[in-house]
């Protein structure tokens, strides 16, 4: 959340008849200040920022390409030329981890934008505010999706749909006369964030729907309606700013799980395909017998990065939850 969007939220809330407790500064700005006072939350944010910057700028930061092989140097321990050593094919471990972070950055951000913000917000607002058939259809499909065990279904869908999906991508590339999609591994990312979004929107949608159901009978929404506000205005100026904190908490709590899902899928061989690096394949390579016995750093480096990232996300989610719902402490 940037400062300007927080201001906008504040004005949105200020335009409505907010209860006196919320008067003064916006709830969002106050929550942000409380969050920044928590040392743990700040440390987590810094760790996450380092990871995302490292991943986003992997091509600039990495000393070697992720696929640059030097078979003379296969399975070398850490040295000045290769800070974390090299793998079975003499590829630089540091570079491969940086590019794996890029995979995580792409997949988490794409999944976050679609499956944890766009879909839940639009479907939740629609279900809560419209009710009737739209609500029934959205809630029932959500219920069915939520009754499915996510990881086995993700494995199943990825394993069976991938060939079809790649076929479509090839067709599209044929029409466009441009072949960057499948060779850059983008097709894999797309499939993964597609299925993760498919299974991810339900929780957020329910939260928003429940909140909208409560809020739409509140006095300030009635007042806005009475003064002739359109449905769109009520939804986006009055309801959305009030449900946004919930979306932020939900999304931040889910980011660790999203990153973990991609890693698990790749680990099981149905996610990002080689040679494109992902922490899933790095951990899988590092867990091979020969690497385990002689070069545990090949496992420990990606394992430590992944564990730290998910830990930081979980702690941050906790801190955010405390800040936004103080009663839950």
């Amino acid at each position, binding site marked *: 959340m940037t400062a300007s969007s927080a201001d906008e939220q504040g004005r949105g809330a200020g335009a409505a008849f907010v209860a006196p407790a919320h008067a003064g500064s916006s709830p969002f700005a106050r929550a942000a200040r409380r969050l920044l006072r928590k040392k743990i939350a700040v440390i987590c944010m810094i760790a996450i920022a380092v990871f995302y910057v490292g991943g986003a700028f992997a091509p600039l930061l990495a000393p070697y390409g992720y696929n640059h092989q030097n078979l003379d140097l296969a399975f070398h321990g850490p040295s000045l030329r290769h800070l974390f050593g090299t793998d079975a094919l003499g590829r630089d471990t540091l570079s491969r981890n940086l590019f794996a972070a890029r995979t995580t950055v792409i997949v988490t951000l794409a999944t976050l934008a679609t499956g944890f913000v766009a879909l839940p917000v639009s479907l939740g607002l629609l279900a809560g505010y419209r009710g009737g058939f739209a609500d029934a259809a959205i*809630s029932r499909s959500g219920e*069915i999706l939520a*009754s499915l065990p996510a*990881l086995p279904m993700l494995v199943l869908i990825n*394993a*069976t749909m991938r060939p079809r999906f790649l076929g479509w991508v090839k067709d599209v590339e044929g029409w466009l006369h441009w072949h960057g999609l499948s060779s850059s591994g983008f097709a894999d990312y797309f499939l993964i964030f597609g299925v993760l979004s498919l299974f991810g929107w339900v929780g957020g949608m329910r939260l928003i729907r429940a909140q909208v159901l409560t809020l739409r009978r509140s006095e300030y929404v009635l007042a806005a309606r009475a003064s002739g506000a359109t449905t769109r205005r009520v939804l986006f100026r009055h309801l959305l700013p009030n449900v946004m904190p919930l979306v932020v908490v939900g*999304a931040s709590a889910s980011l660790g799980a999203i990153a973990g899902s991609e890693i698990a899928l790749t680990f099981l061989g149905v996610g990002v395909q080689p040679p494109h690096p992902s922490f899933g394949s790095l951990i899988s390579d590092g867990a091979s017998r020969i690497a385990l016995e002689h070069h*545990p750093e090949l496992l420990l480096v990606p394992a430590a990065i992944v564990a730290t990232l998910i830990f930081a996300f979980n702690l941050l989610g906790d801190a955010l939850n405390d800040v936004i719902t103080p009663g839950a402490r």
Partner: protein
Amino acid sequence: MDGLAGYVVRRLLFLPVVLLVVSFGTFFITRWGPGDPISIYSGQYRDPEAFARVRHTYGLDKPIIVQYGIWLKDIALHGDFGVSFRYRDRTIPEIIGPKIWVSVRLGAYAFILTFLLGIPIGIYAAVKQGTWLDPFLISVFLFFQSIPVLVTVPVLVILLAVKVHWVPPGGFDGIFSRSMIIPTLALGLPGVAGVARLARATTLGALHEDFVRTARAKGLDEFTVITRHVARNAVAPVMTTVIGLSLVGLIEGALITETLLGIPGIGEYTFQSVNAKDYNVILVIVLLITFAFVLANLLVDLVLVAIDPRARLAGGGGP
């Protein structure tokens, strides 16, 4: 709490609808992908005539929707879940029954570990609220929860099987063997944080009850107050939730743990069946897991409502 019974009945009535939709979705997804079990088993150099004949025998040459109709009819009329293409001489329940039993025993171990660690830690953290110990303890186990199972298993193998030869690096030889140690730790530790937090929350609630004040006023020492009066009221709801939540976590964890360690449980078999495109087995497993999942989630929702009446019944899961 009016409407609670109605809510439960509605959720249960919805279960057949869920299973029907899920069965259709899974049926469609598995069969629509390219390749089929017959082409996997017949290999690269096959007799096209025989290949077509075998496919025809199993009805795989019909449109998917027709195949689905036949599958449903067989279940409705004969209770027949179809044939496993990998082991054609045995019925699907005969194949997956023993595998489920392995996973259930493994899950029970993990569950006991989660419970035995989580409850005391949660209660202790609640009692120490306001000191550094409370957030520290919860954070330590939150860290264990943050390490993906696919990392824990190889790390434990390095530590316990490669560096010191305390346990075998994989496999399964009965539940009273050392081969259970790694999977139990890998599956049990991640759940501790959740249980501890829940136990902490219920304990904090119970600490402010009148009967606790009475117990203290009677002059009971703090230890007795906590173990006799607070813990008893804090544990019951946690236990029920744990059963539900750990089922959810165990199903997902078992897939990776069993595959990695070569444990012949249902998680490993699911993965094998997906790779072998053993359609009917995949379907039965997915439906079974879905069934267990719905019941577990319903249980969790009900307990959460009992703990916190403000929790909305439509909630559950959460993001």
